[in-house]
């Protein structure tokens, strides 16, 4: 069910809501590019407590998510750390920071983490990304593959 991995990639989002599918689609395409047992790739509609087991087994995690705060098509990547504020109290869906907090409290450790965000241009009912976000996908995928290689070398 869970295995020791070096790098965990978690694509978060709803495939039925246009650009909210950014995370799952990047994760899916990454599956076709990366064949390394040290890398685990997951797709989730939301982050839930049982992911703590996966996180506890990893040394580094990258969350891929859509953002309504960024401008459409704007891409941002930044490190994140555990946080005991905000939506810490939620059970059915957690923020990446809260999930790291859960992991630390349950297992006494959590991986280093970063989040990659893509600003959405639309979240309507569609299984297609908007052209704005779809156009950024190859570049993000390339960056991600390179980042994974860097992390594996480290």
């Amino acid at each position: 069910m869970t295995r020791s991995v070096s790098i965990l990639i978690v694509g978060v989002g709803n495939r039925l809501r246009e650009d909210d599918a950014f995370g799952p689609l990047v994760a899916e395409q990454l599956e076709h590019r990366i064949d390394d047992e040290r890398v685990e790739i997951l797709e989730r509609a939301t982050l839930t407590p049982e992911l703590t087991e996966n996180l506890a087994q990893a040394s580094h995690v990258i969350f891929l998510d859509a953002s309504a705060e960024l401008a459409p098509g704007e891409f941002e990547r930044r490190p994140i750390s555990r946080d005991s504020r905000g939506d810490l109290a939620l059970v059915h869906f957690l923020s990446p920071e809260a999930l790291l907090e859960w992991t630390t409290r349950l297992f006494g450790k959590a991986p280093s983490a970063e989040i990659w965000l893509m600003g959405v241009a639309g979240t309507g009912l569609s299984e297609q990304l908007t052209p704005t976000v779809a156009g950024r996908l190859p570049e993000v995928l390339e960056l991600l593959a390179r980042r994974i290689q860097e992390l594996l070398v480290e």
Partner: protein
Amino acid sequence: MPTLTIEPITRIEGHARITLQLSDAGDVERAQFHVTQLRGFEKFCEGRPFPEMPSLTARTCGICPVSHLIASSKACDALMAVEIPPAAVRLRRVINLAQLLQSHALSFFHLSSPDLLLGWDSDPASRNVFGLIREHPQLAKDGVRLRQIGQSIIERLGNKRVHPSWIVPGGVQSAMTPEVRAEIRAWLPEAMDIAERTYRLYRGMVKGFKAEAEAFGDFPSLFMGLVDSKGNLEHYDGVLRIKNSEGHVIEAGVRADDYVDIIAEAAEDDSFVKSPYYVPMGYPQGMYRVGPLARLNVAERCGTPVADEALDEFRELSPGRPVSSSFHFHMARLIEILFAIERLEQLTANANILDTKVRARARGNKNRGIGISEAPRGTLIHDYSIDDEGRITGVNLIIATGHNNLAMNRSVLQVARRYVRGPNVSEGMLNRVEAVIRCYDPCLSCASHEFGRMPLDVRFIDARGHELGRALRK
């Protein structure tokens, strides 16, 4: 008359509020549980081709989509008038039990344990999962693990944890592979260890909750659930049985097609949840309860050894009669977890589960189809009508939380009368009023579960609408 409003109610599915009307002396005179969200699935499914219904109605809920897939697919089987292959029945049973396992684990370990293990009056700042991790670290980990096992079984079979499209009219999309069977079976011993450990812990504590058991929805009512041909616990198929609080069976075996003879729905102005009732007794006297407590009350036996042993202990809570306190939903949930794991072991041990004939195909051959199954929270009914082209012309969904609506209102009144004295209401009092709702684990569909300290706005309003006082929990 002063009115006390509790909104939002925490650690439940969806949006609701409770209104308590107090007498001038501060005693609770009336209580109402209002569901304040509207979904509208019954209306917007009209006109869709019936094979779409499992996928559409599964979107009713992100927490228990498998339950809707099962009941919906059964309704579609009935529309097609087909008998689905035996392996498909077994596979549907497996995924239904996995759903029950993960849902009950969430309810007990994450949503109710903080109250049960840390106390209703404990500091709300630590009456949450982190308080639980600090005081009971193994139990907190066990909850995560057990839920993960249930979710993983769903994912392996359905290829997705949420909204798998594997369950379809006529059966399932694909057969179980030997690898998946081996993987699932390898998880079950660990799941059983967790379930037995937790059950033993809770069994040792349950007598200490005497006061709560007497106040948290302890009243006579009917109980309803599916039973198999031997009258034993059943979650996928079988017939509806109703028992009264004296333990007499008043409906021995109602088939899905005949459910309208015994269940009707009343609507209230102040809630989007309807109030089903037992037709021969009328509304609201025909109040009944469904879910784990009701299922154990109506069944003769569970039919698996460990769960049956636990069932005997459960029945010691109320010798010779059904267990009438809704507080004991918690213990019933743990017993059903034991049962689910034992049944998963039995089902996956059968070599026939690998049969590759898993789907029957047909067009709509009847104009009405009804599917009934037991969701984690209780009986789930999908009732569809179609035209000759197979387009949906009518939908009625009766979900567990609806069945329990009258009982939840009665429970809120009872616990409020016991614990609430206005206008100086303590946090512990409010928490108990919320906790009695959590006993039912209501699913108001797809909203967030909140855990622990939640904003709470309590207002005392007199008959003229003047605010007498206000208590805020931030």
